[in-house]
């Protein structure tokens, strides 16, 4: 005689256990994916910030290194004057909309580096008693006496912001 009580397939409790186990595995995998995505994003931001900082600092250092004289209307702008083929040239570096711009002799503004949130300059001068100090632009009386430029560049946006420091000596 056939056993009519024998079940074929899964009972409800088995299905519920399988469902619960499936959910635990999926939530675990999702957690791993989110963590990996966050690490990936942070790594990308770090790499981008470093590249942008390197570029901005190199650009400003090269500008100061070729300068006969530097000047600035405030602590966030830098103008360099240099001689090229007997002509006096001028370049101004300033920040606009989180980008470092160069304004050259032809009043042509070129975006040079993006992702720069702030840029500050101080100027090294020597007083009569042979003492060197860094002063802000408004304290410089004679720009021909400036010997070097202290550069501070803040790169990135929150929460991935890093301040980079540099210094460039005039030739």
């Amino acid at each position: 005689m056939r056993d009519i009580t024998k079940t074929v397939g899964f009972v409800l409790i088995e299905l519920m256990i399988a469902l619960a186990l499936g959910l635990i595995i999926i939530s675990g995998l999702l957690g791993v994916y989110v963590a990996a995505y966050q690490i990936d994003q942070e790594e990308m931001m770090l790499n981008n910030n470093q590249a942008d900082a390197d570029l901005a600092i190199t650009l400003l250092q090269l500008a100061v290194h070729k300068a006969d004289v530097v000047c600035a209307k405030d602590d966030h702008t830098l103008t360099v004057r240099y001689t090229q083929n007997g002509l006096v040239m001028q370049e101004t570096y300033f920040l606009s909309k989180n980008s470092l711009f160069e304004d050259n002799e032809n009043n042509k503004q070129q975006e040079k580096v993006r992702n720069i949130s702030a840029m500050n300059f101080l100027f090294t001068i020597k007083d009569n008693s042979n003492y060197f100090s860094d002063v802000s632009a408004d304290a410089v009386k004679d720009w021909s006496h400036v010997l070097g430029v202290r550069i501070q560049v803040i790169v990135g946006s929150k929460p991935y912001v890093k301040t980079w420091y540099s210094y460039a000596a005039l030739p």
Partner: protein
Amino acid sequence: MQVSTFKQTKANTYFAFATTQLISLIEQLSVLKNADNRSFIQLWNQENALGLPNGNGEVIGTYPDYTIVIRWGSGETCETLQRQLVLS
């Protein structure tokens, strides 16, 4: 593997920061020559501390022969960047 890559990226950033700091001080010492450089080195060391984990620097010697050392990190991840310099 991803975590170790991320650690390497961070290590690279710190190394790039330390290199920038080293070049920055060389430029400053070339401007100062044999003048009093203590306040400049103090500020430079504040920057090292701000930008590097346990970052600190040391300038050994007198004008024109210097050795510049920057250290950062701790334990197994301790790093050192050193450069000898003769200013002309």
